[in-house]
C-alpha cells in the first residue's frame, strides 16, 4: 500500500511523516509520534476522549484520516501547558478535583479550551451543551462544569 507524505504542524512544531489511508489522525498521534496524551475511547466519535483541534476547529481525531492532517495545524493536550506552567483550565480541573481515572480529561480540556476561545463567559447550560460530546463515566460532570466556570472567570480577569 502506497503511503502518503504528510506535512503537518502539531502544537506549533512541524512534523513530516508517511501515512497510509487506514491510519486515523489519532493513530498518527499515538503510534507514530508517541503523543499518547490524546486517548482513544470509542473510536466512533461518540465519547470525545480523542478531541483535538484542527485549524482551530474541535474534532474527534478518531474520525479524521491521518492523511487529512497534511497542511493543517493540530493542537493536542501536549501543547496546552506552557512548560511547567499549567493552562488555567488544567489547574482548575485539579483544584476542583474534576477528574478521577483521567481518560476523558485530555478531551474535556481541549473541548473546554475551544469553548472558551469562542465564548469567554459561557453559562452553565452552554457549557453542558458544548461538552455533550465528551463522556465521563466516573467523575460525573458537575465538578467539570465548576472547573470550566472558574477557569473562565480567571481567564477573563473577573
Amino acid at each position: 500500500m502506497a503511503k502518503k507524505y504528510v506535512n503537518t504542524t502539531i502544537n506549533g512544531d512541524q512534523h513530516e511523516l508517511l501515512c497510509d489511508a487506514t491510519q486515523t489522525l489519532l493513530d498518527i498521534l499515538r503510534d507514530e509520534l508517541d503523543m499518547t496524551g490524546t486517548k482513544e475511547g470509542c473510536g466512533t466519535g461518540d465519547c470525545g476522549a480523542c478531541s483535538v483541534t484542527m485549524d482551530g476547529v474541535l474534532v474527534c481525531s478518531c474520525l479524521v484520516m491521518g492523511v487529512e492532517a497534511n497542511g493543517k495545524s493540530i493542537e493536542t493536550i501536549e501543547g496546552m501547558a506552557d512548560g511547567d506552567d499549567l493552562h488555567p483550565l488544567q489547574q482548575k480541573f485539579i483544584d476542583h478535583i474534576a477528574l478521577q481515572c483521567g481518560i476523558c480529561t485530555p478531551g474535556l480540556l481541549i473541548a473546554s479550551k475551544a469553548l472558551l476561545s469562542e465564548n469567554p463567559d459561557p453559562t452553565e447550560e452552554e457549557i453542558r451543551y458544548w461538552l455533550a460530546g465528551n463522556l465521563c463515566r466516573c467523575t460525573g460532570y458537575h465538578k467539570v462544569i465548576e472547573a470550566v466556570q472558574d477557569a473562565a472567570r480567571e481567564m477573563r480577569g473577573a
Partner: protein
Amino acid sequence: MRYEVPETLDAAVGLLASESGVAKVFAGGTDVMVQLHLDLIEPDLIVDVKNIPEMREVVEEDGRWRFGAAVTGKELMDNSAFNAAWPGVMDGVRLIGSVQVRGRATVGGNLCNASPAADSVPPMIAADAIASVIGPNGRRDIPLADIVTGPGQTSLVEGEIVVSFKLPKRPANSGDAYLRFTPRTEMDIAVVGCGVNITLDDAGSCIAARVSLGAVAARPLLVEGAADALIGTKVNDDAMEALAGAASAACEPIDDKRGTIEYRTEVAGVLAQRAAAIALERAKS
C-alpha cells in the same frame, strides 16, 4: 485503500468512474470513518471532496441560497445570514452529533448516509431544497425528497456525487422549523423528526406549506396531506388538529428500542403541531 483529493468535480467524477472496486465519497467522514472502524465497508478508493471549491461554498444570489454538500455543520452555524434565512434547516443541522461531529459533518453526508432519522433531511425537504448532482452521465437536479429511498439506500447512480444544495427564494412572511423527539437532549438519534415550512399572506392565512417527517418510515417523508391541512387556514386549532391527524396517518414506522409503532405515530402528530407553531411564529416575525 487509496486516498485521493481531487481539486475539481471532473477529476472526482473521473476517479470514481475509473475505479473497478468499491469507491467511497468522503467529506466530513463522521459516518465513513465509523463504517471503516467497524469493518462495515472495505473501499478500494476514498475520494475526499473537500478541496473542490463548489462543494465548499455558501452563497446567496438574489435571495436564493446555495451551499456545497461538503460545507460543515459548524460553518453553516457560523453563517448568521444563512441562519436568519433558513432557521428550520439550521434547527436540524444544530442537532447533528456533538460540537466535535458538527466541526466535520456535512449536510451532503447526512443525506447520502441515508439514515431515515437524519436530522438535516426533513427540514431540507420541507424547504423544497434541490440537490445538484454530478456523475458519469453529466449533471442533474434532484428534489431532496427523491434521494433517500430506504435505510442506507439512495436514488443516486454509481459514481454520482451530490455537489451542492439550492434553496428557493423565500416569499415574505415565511418561516420554517424542525423538531425531533429524543429521550436525551443531545447526542441521540431521532425517535421522530418533523420539519415544517410555511408562507402566510398579509392577512395571516397560510398560502403555502411543506411538512416532512423523519424516523417514521424507511425514508424521510414529504407529507402532502399534512401541508394541505394548513394551506388556506389561519393555522388555528382546527388546522393544527387536522395537521396532527395527517402527520400520524402518514407514518409507517418500525418498532425498535427507541420507540414503538404506536408511540412514533402519536408523537409525529404532536411534533408536527409544535414545529408548525414555531414556523408560524417565525413567519410572523
